[in-house]
Every structure is written in C-alpha cells, then in structure tokens.
C-alpha cells in the first residue's frame, strides 16, 4: 500500500503532466488562416519575394487582424521578415541567418536570391562539448559529492564542511539551497558559454549561397564575406559526415556535417571545407544546383520546404514535407 505522501506525489506529477499535455495538444491544433497564408505566399509571391499586407488580404480574403497574427508567427519561424510599413520579405527556408546578417548578405550580394545561409560551427563538437557539457558535468559531480558528503559522509565530510565554511557565517541551513543554487548557476554558465560560442561563430563563420553570386563566406572576424567562389569556379562538391557527426546528429537539435568544395581558379585547384554546416545535405544540393544551373526543383518544392521550416508556426504541420505532400508532387 502506498503512503499518503507518495500517492500525493504521483497524483501531483500526473496532474502536471496532464495539464501541460493538454496545453501542448491545443497549441498544435490546426490554424486554417495560417495555412492559407502560407499557401498564398507560396502560390503568388515566390518570385517577387516581397508582398504587402494589402496583397495578402486580396488573395486570401482574410481579415487584417488574422493576417497580422499569422505573419507574426511566420516571422518568428524565420520565414518572412517585415520591412517598412506593411511590406514583408520572403526568406528562403534554408536561410538560418539572423535578421542583421541576412540584411548584410543581401547588401553584399546586391540583393541576390539567397538560397542557403548559415554559420559554420568549427568548434563543434570538440571544444563546444568540452566547454559546455564538461563544465556542467564537473558542477554536477561537485554538487553530488557535496550532498553525499553531508548526508552519508562519503567520500569525505571535508567537502561539505568546506562548502558550509564558504556560506555566510557558516550557516548550515543554507547548505541545501546553496547546492541547488550552484547547480542552477552551472546551467546558466553553460547557456552563457553557448551564447558566446554562437556569437563568435556568427561574426566569423557565415556562409551564404546565392543563385547568381555563388558561395560567399567570411574569412576573418572583421570580414564582410570576402571569401568568394563564383558559380563557374565550382569544380566539384562533396559531403563529408564523419561517424562522430553522424552519431551526434541523432541526438542534437540541428544536424551538422562538412561540405567540401573543389574550386578551380585559372590553373590552380584548391579544396575549401566548410566545417560543421547545419543541414549539410541540403547545402550540398544547393551548391550542386547552382553549379549546374538547375534551380527548378526549388520552385517546385517550395511549398514542402516552406512547410518544413514553418512547422513551429504551423501548429498542425507535419515534421517534414512528405506528410502533407507538397505541390511538388510525391507526397509519401
């Protein structure tokens, strides 16, 4: 027979689970207005890449308030960005740049159609894993040892005594909350480190692929995309996902891999490697397509690509394009 306290705990956990499950379920309910907006954007504004609220109102027949709400969600998903007034700009679904860097890329490529844009993660997974997870692991181990030291005297009472001495006036009542505080601060420090690494990578390792401009990439911290590979200079492109990257990709939120581009400039040939690029297969296909001048597939599958990227905004959208079957044809 369960004790009353244990029963209360189980009931509380189940209630917490049920309440948030219902919330998650409701958040993912269908939103026909939003789906209609996506359909209209893909169907009418894919070429111009810009549209106004009035255009959208005319094409969808939806009220302005509904349109604004839908566009705000698409903006958060990174699919459109608001320009001046009620004009919006469409982003390619494979562009993962910040708004500032997207503007920078557009400016430098003279308003080219940017097909892919992201940042290399050259420190992934080595330094990243070491700093981010190693530090937190050390923090967790210390907290656990201090707790065990205080409760059962293992491995030695010295650890908890040292912690208590470090507390104000050696107050023992603060021991447990202080350990929890240390654990929580470990999490914050990890997040902080993560943001620093990302900020550095964004300034130093941007890579974009434009329909006409070819591949542009940063070569130093202060660089403005001076690394250039013109379309005609691409001799070959290859994708290289190591075993370690493959395993990490199973568990991390964003899949990464290396993409090698062989470049021929005059008589010289060199290989440029973009390390740990997000969605490397897609980058490979984009580079292949600009090399061969075959961009028709993009337009044909724009709807499915957009649905994939918009899945955070589109509550009922499936995880990938196949579930809804894009206009491009095969749905399975």
């Amino acid at each position, binding site marked *: 027979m*369960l004790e009353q*306290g244990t029963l*209360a*705990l*189980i009931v*509380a*956990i*189940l209630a*917490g*689970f*049920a309440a*948030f*499950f*219902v919330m*998650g*379920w409701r*958040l993912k309910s269908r939103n026909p207005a939003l789906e209609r907006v996506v359909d209209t954007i893909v169907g009418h504004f894919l070429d111009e890449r810009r549209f106004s609220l009035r255009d959208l109102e005319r094409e969808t027949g939806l009220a302005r308030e509904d349109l604004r709400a839908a566009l705000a969600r698409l*903006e*958060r*998903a*990174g699919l459109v960005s608001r320009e001046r007034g009620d004009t919006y700009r469409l982003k390619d679904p494979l562009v993962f740049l910040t708004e500032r860097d997207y503007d920078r890329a557009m400016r430098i490529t003279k308003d080219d159609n940017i097909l892919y844009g*992201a940042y290399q993660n050259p420190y992934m997974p080595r330094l990243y894993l070491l700093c981010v997870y190693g530090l937190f692991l050390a923090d967790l181990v210390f907290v656990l040892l201090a707790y065990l030291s205080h409760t059962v005297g293992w491995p030695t009472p010295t650890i908890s005594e040292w912690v208590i001495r470090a507390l104000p006036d050696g*107050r023992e*009542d*603060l021991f447990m*909350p*202080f350990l*929890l*505080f240390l654990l*929580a601060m470990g*999490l*914050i*420090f990890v*997040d902080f480190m993560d*943001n620093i690494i*990302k900020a550095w990578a964004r300034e130093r390792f941007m890579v974009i692929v434009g329909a006409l401009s070819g591949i542009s990439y940063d070569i130093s911290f202060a660089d403005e995309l001076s690394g250039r590979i013109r379309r005609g200079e691409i001799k070959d492109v290859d994708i290289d996902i190591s075993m370690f990257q493959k395993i990490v990709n*199973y*568990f991390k*939120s*964003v*899949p990464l891999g290396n993409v090698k581009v062989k470049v021929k400039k005059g008589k010289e040939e060199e290989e440029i490697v973009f390390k740990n690029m*997000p969605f490397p*297969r897609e980058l490979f*296909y984009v580079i*292949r397509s600009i090399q*061969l001048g*075959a961009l*028709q*597939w993009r337009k*044909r*599958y724009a709807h*499915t690509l957009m649905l*994939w990227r918009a*899945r955070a905004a589109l509550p009922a959208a499936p*995880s*990938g*394009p196949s579930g809804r079957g*894009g206009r*491009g044809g*095969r749905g399975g």
Partner: protein
Amino acid sequence: MAEEFAPEVLAEIEAGYRLRPATQVGLMLVLVVLGIWLIQQAQLPLGTAIIVSTIYVALLYPLIIKIKNRLTIALSFGLYGAALTAILYWLVASYFLPALTGSQAMLSVEAIALYVIFLEIVGMELFHHLCEEYVFYERDWRSYLLTAILSAGFFACLYVFLSAYALGFTAILISAVLTMMFAWAVLPEKPV
C-alpha cells in the same frame, strides 16, 4: 536535372539525419527501463525514486525522440509539466512544509531566495529543453519583457543572498554581473 534533387528534397529533411522512428521509440524505451532500474538499485525512498525517474525521462525524451507531430510535442509539454511538478513537490514537501508545520526551523529569507533562483532557472531551462517549438528565437517585446521580469527576480534574490555576507556595494556589483549573465542565458539563441 531537377529530378536528380527531387527525392532528396522531398524526403523528410530532418529525418535523413535521425534514427528511424521505430528505433527512436525502441531506444527511448530501453534507456527508460535501464535508467529506472539503476535508480531502483540506488535504493532511494520511493518518493525520491519517482521524482528522479520523472526528471530523468524528461531530460532524456527530447534527446532521443526527434519525431515531430502533435502527439510527440504534446508529450514533451506533458513531461515538462511532470518534471516541474516533481521538483516543486520535492521542494515544498522537503523544505517548506516541515518549516511551516514547525517540525524544522523556519526557512531564512536567504534560503527562500536561493530556492526561488533555482526554480526560476530550472523552470526556464527545462522549458528550453522540452518545449523548443515554442521558444521565441526571434526576439520581440514579449521575450524582452519575460527576460526583464525573470532578471529582476533573479537580481533581487541574489542580492538578498549576497547581503548575508555583508559585502555592501560589492553585493550589488556581483548581483548585477551575474544577472547580466543570467539575462543573456535566458534570451534564447537560435540553435544554428
């Protein structure tokens, strides 16, 4: 030439990098059973074992399950609720209730401040971990407002704790620096 790329584009973009759905579910089940067995081997009291198991499953789920549909996302939200409730229950039952009923000494203001910081951080980090679809990566007034409220709470609690050291102005300085770190950590960065 267009057809050359079509199957790849049409195939589920992320699914190409992940384990097959059945493997994900299988691996999740194996790791859950293994984890709960290990927790049982530690011979913890039943209540503690339930709390640890709930947190373990909540931490594991988004790492293994990459299938994104209405059910898996709702489950993720559910696990967030379960883990948060388990942590809250543990704090209330172990520290707050005994103090209120008089079976333990009253909690000091500093202790309460540290518990609040812990709950704030754990609640936010668990949300980032389990409810990724609803983390606002594009910063807007809502994300700034939420960050401002959480940071104000963090600063106040940290200052209360550090004041116990009688550091004077240094307590404000340290609180401000750590709050800036906290605020930057709270503001979500895009995963790519």
